[in-house]
C-alpha cells in the first residue's frame, strides 16, 4: 500500500512536469501580449515594446522556461505581471472562497443526492422513482447561470434573505460566511446532485438484483438495513468514483458560479488571468489544478478499499 502511494505520488510529479511544459508552451504560442494590456489603449507600439523588454517577454522560449522552472523548484510561482503581487499570495487569497464553495456544494450534494438515489432505486418503477429521475433531468438541463439568477431573484431581491454577491471569510463569523455561500452552492451543486443521484440509483439497482440481497431479504432483515448496510456499501465504489470526478467538475464549474456571484475564487482568478494574459498566474493555477486533480484521483483510488476489501494495492 505504501509503495503504491509513493509510486502514485512520484507519477504525480511527472504529470505536473508534463503539464508545466505543456502549459508554458501553449501560452508561448497563444496570441496575446500582457505588455499591450498593461500599456493601455492610448499607448504606442513603441511603448509596448519597451514594456515587453522590461518584463523579459522578448527572451527566447528556453530562457523564459528555464527561469520559470528554476524559480518553481525554489517554491516561487512568480509574480503577477499586472498587480506585481506574488502568485502564491494571489492564489492564497482565492483558495478559501473556492474551497469553501466546493466543500459546501459537495456536502449539500452528497447529503441530498445519495439518499434520493437510494430511495429512487428502492422504489424503482414507482412515481417516486419517476419524480426523482424527472427532477434530475431538469437539474441537468438548467444552466448554472440561469439557476443562479433565479435564486438571486427569489432569495436576494424578492425575499431579501440572502446576499446577492460576494464572499465573507469564515473568520467574520459562521453566518456571514454561510449566507454568502448558500445560493452559490445550490446553483453549483444542482447538476452535481442530479449526477450523483442517477449514478447512485443505477449502482443500487445493480446491487439490489444480486443474490446476497435476496438472501438478506429472505432472512428477514429490515428493508432499511438491507439498503444501507448491504446494498449501499456494495454500490459505494461507482458512487465514490463519481464523487471524485465531480470534485474536478465542481472546480471547473465554480468559474461560472464565482463570476455570477462575484466570489473572488480560483476560477475567476484563472479567467481574469487568461483574458489579460497574466502568464505567471495561469501557469501557477494550472499547476495547482493538475496537482489537486491527481491527488483527488489518488484519494478516490485509496478509498475503494473502504468499500471493497477485495481491492489490494
Amino acid at each position, binding site marked *: 500500500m505504501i509503495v503504491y502511494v509513493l509510486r502514485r505520488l512520484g507519477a504525480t510529479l511527472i504529470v505536473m512536469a508534463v503539464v508545466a511544459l505543456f502549459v508554458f508552451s501553449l501560452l508561448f504560442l497563444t*496570441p*496575446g*501580449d500582457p505588455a*499591450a*494590456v*498593461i*500599456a*493601455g*489603449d*492610448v*499607448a*504606442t*507600439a*513603441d*511603448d*509596448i515594446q*519597451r*514594456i515587453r*523588454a*522590461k518584463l523579459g517577454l522578448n527572451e527566447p522560449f528556453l530562457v523564459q522556461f528555464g527561469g520559470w522552472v528554476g524559480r518553481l523548484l525554489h517554491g516561487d510561482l512568480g509574480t*503577477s505581471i*499586472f*498587480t*506585481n*503581487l506574488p502568485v502564491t499570495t*494571489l492564489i492564497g*487569497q482565492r483558495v478559501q472562497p473556492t474551497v469553501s464553495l466546493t466543500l459546501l456544494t459537495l456536502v449539500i450534494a452528497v447529503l441530498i443526492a445519495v439518499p434520493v438515489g437510494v430511495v429512487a432505486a428502492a422504489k424503482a418503477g414507482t412515481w417516486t422513482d419517476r419524480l426523482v429521475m424527472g427532477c434530475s433531468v431538469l437539474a441537468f438541463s438548467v444552466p448554472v447561470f440561469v439557476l443562479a*439568477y433565479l435564486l*438571486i*431573484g427569489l432569495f*436576494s*431581491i424578492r*425575499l*431579501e*434573505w*440572502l*446576499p*446577492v*454577491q*460576494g*464572499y465573507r471569510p469564515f473568520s*467574520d*463569523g459562521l*453566518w*456571514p460566511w454561510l*449566507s454568502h455561500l448558500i445560493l452559490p452552492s445550490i446553483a453549483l451543486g444542482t447538476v452535481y446532485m442530479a449526477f450523483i443521484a442517477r449514478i447512485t440509483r443505477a449502482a443500487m439497482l445493480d446491487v439490489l438484483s444480486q443474490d446476497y440481497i435476496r438472501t438478506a431479504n429472505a432472512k428477514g432483515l429490515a428493508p432499511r438495513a438491507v439498503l444501507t448496510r448491504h446494498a449501499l456499501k456494495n454500490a459505494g465504489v461507482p458512487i465514490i468514483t463519481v464523487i471524485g470526478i465531480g470534485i474536478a467538475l465542481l472546480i471547473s464549474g465554480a468559474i461560472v458560479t464565482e*463570476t*455570477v*456571484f*462575484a466570489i*473572488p475564487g480560483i476560477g*475567476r*482568478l484563472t479567467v*481574469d488571468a487568461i*483574458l*489579460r*494574459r497574466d502568464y505567471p498566474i495561469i501557469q501557477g493555477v494550472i499547476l495547482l489544478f493538475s496537482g489537486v486533480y491527481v491527488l483527488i484521483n489518488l484519494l478516490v483510488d485509496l478509498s475503494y478499499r473502504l468499500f471493497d476489501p477485495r481491492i489490494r494495492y
Partner: protein
Amino acid sequence: MKVVFALLRAFVLALAFAASSAAAQEKVLKFIPQSDLRILDPITTTAYITRNHGYMVYDTLFATNAKFQIQPQMVNKWELSRDKLTYTFTLRDGLKFHDGQPVRSADCIASIERWGKRDSLGQRLAQSTESWTAVNDKIFKLRLKKPFPLTLDALGKLSSNVPFIMPERIAKTDPFQNITEAIGSGPFKFVKEEWVPGSKVVYVKNTDYVPRKEAPSWAAGAKVAKVDRVEWIYIPDSATAAAALSAGEADWWEQLPPDLIPLLRKNKDVRVENIDPLGSIGMIRFNFLQPPFNNQKLRQALLYVVNQRDYVLGIAGDEKNGHTCYSFFTCGTPLSSEIGAEPLKGKRDFDKARKLIQESGYKGEKIVIISATDQPIVHSQSLLTADLLRNLGLNVELQAGDWGTLITRRTSKEPVEKGGWSIFHTWWVGPDMISPANMAMVNLGDKSWFGWPADPRLEELRQAWFNTTDPASGKKAADAVQLQAFNFVPYITTAQFILPAAYRSNLSGIIVAPVTFLWNVEKK
C-alpha cells in the same frame, strides 16, 4: 406556509443584523467600478480604472475645472516670467504624503519628469523643457527652452495619463516599470493589505488632507472625503451588479450597460443619471501601412456612408444615451466644430462612396476587421462597419476574438495574410479627444498610435496649434487641423455616447464630471 416564511425571514434577518452591527459604525461607500483595478501605476498605463484610482490616492499640481480652465491644486501660487520661459511654482502649506512625509519640490519634479517620459502631452512639455529646479522644499522652477503655451494644460491634464504627484523615491522608478506602492497625498489612502485583485479595492479617508477652499469643480477645488471608507467591489456580471445595487449591497455603479437602464429606472431607491457631461467617442481606426486603407480615397469613401445614428443605437441602445458628433474634437468642448464635416454629416451617399472606391483602384483586397466580443462597445461598432463595407461590395472579413487578442493583434504591421489587420474600433473618453493633442491625431508614421498614419501637412497644422498662445488663435488652428483631418481621414468618429451611472438615493454630492470622482459624496 406564510408563517413559516415569516419565521425563516426573521431568523435570517436576525443573523444578518448580528453579523453587521459591528461594522455599521463607519460610513462605507460601496462602489462598483467600470472594470477591475489591476495596475496601480497611473503612469505606466493609460487604463481609465487606474486613472480613477490615481485620483483617489494622489493629488495634482493643477487641475481642470468644469469651465475647462486650469486651476492651481497642490500649487498655492505660480508665476511666469516676462520672456515666458520660466515658471515658478509654490506649493500649498500642509501637503503630506500618506506615509507622513511632507510633499517637497523634489517629489513634484521627479513625478513630472517620470510622467513626461510616458504621456504624449508630457513628452511635448519635456521636449520644450530646459530644466526643473528645486529652489527649496516648497518652491520649484521650470525653465523652458522655448515658450510652451500648453504648460499649465499639461500639468492640469484631466485624463490619462494624469501628472499625479508621488514621493520622489517612488517617482524615480523606471517609467516603463510598474510602481508597487500607492502612496500619494490625495484625499483617500489605499489599503494594500485589503486589496484583492479581481474583487475588492479599499480606500480610507486621509484625515491629514488639507482641501482647497474653492467649491469642487471636476478635478479642481476642494476634495473633501465625506465617507470614512470606500470599497470598490468589482462585479464582472452586469446582472449581478444590478441586483447588488437593487438590494443595497452597493451604493453606486459607475457605468450601466444600456440594456439594464430600464430595469434600474423602475427601482425607486435607485437613481439612473448621466453624470458624465462629455461621454465617450467611438472610432473606426484604419491601418495606414497596408492596402486598401493606405489609400486616402477609400477612407474618404467611408465618410459618405458611416451613419452615426446607427452607431449611437448600436453602442448606447437608445438615442437618449448618445448623439452624433461630426467633429474630431469632443462635441460640447471649446474646440469642437463641424468645419469640413459635410461628407460625414450630409445625406448618406452610397453612389458617391462607390465612385470614390472605384477611383481608389480597389482590387478586391481582403479587409480584416478585428473585433473583441467581450467589449460590447467595440463589437457593436465592428458589426455595423462590417455590414456597411459589405453593402459597398468590399471584401470584408470580421475576425472576432477577445480584447486581449485585439490589442495584441493591432500592434502587427504585417499584411492581413500574415495576421495583420485593416480596421479596428475603440472608444475614448471625451476629455481625451478635446484637442489636436489627442493620440489618434498624431501623424508621424511609426511614432503614431496604432494604424501609424503619416501626414506631414496634418502634423504641421497640429504643431501650429501647439504653438498658439490664446484661445482665439487656438480655435482657428484647431479648425485648420480638423479641415485637413476630414481630407486625410486618420480615423472616423462613430458616435458620442454616454454610459449612465446608477446610485442609491441616499447618496448626494456626486460631482458631474467626465471622470468619476469619489470625494464630496455623502451617504445618509
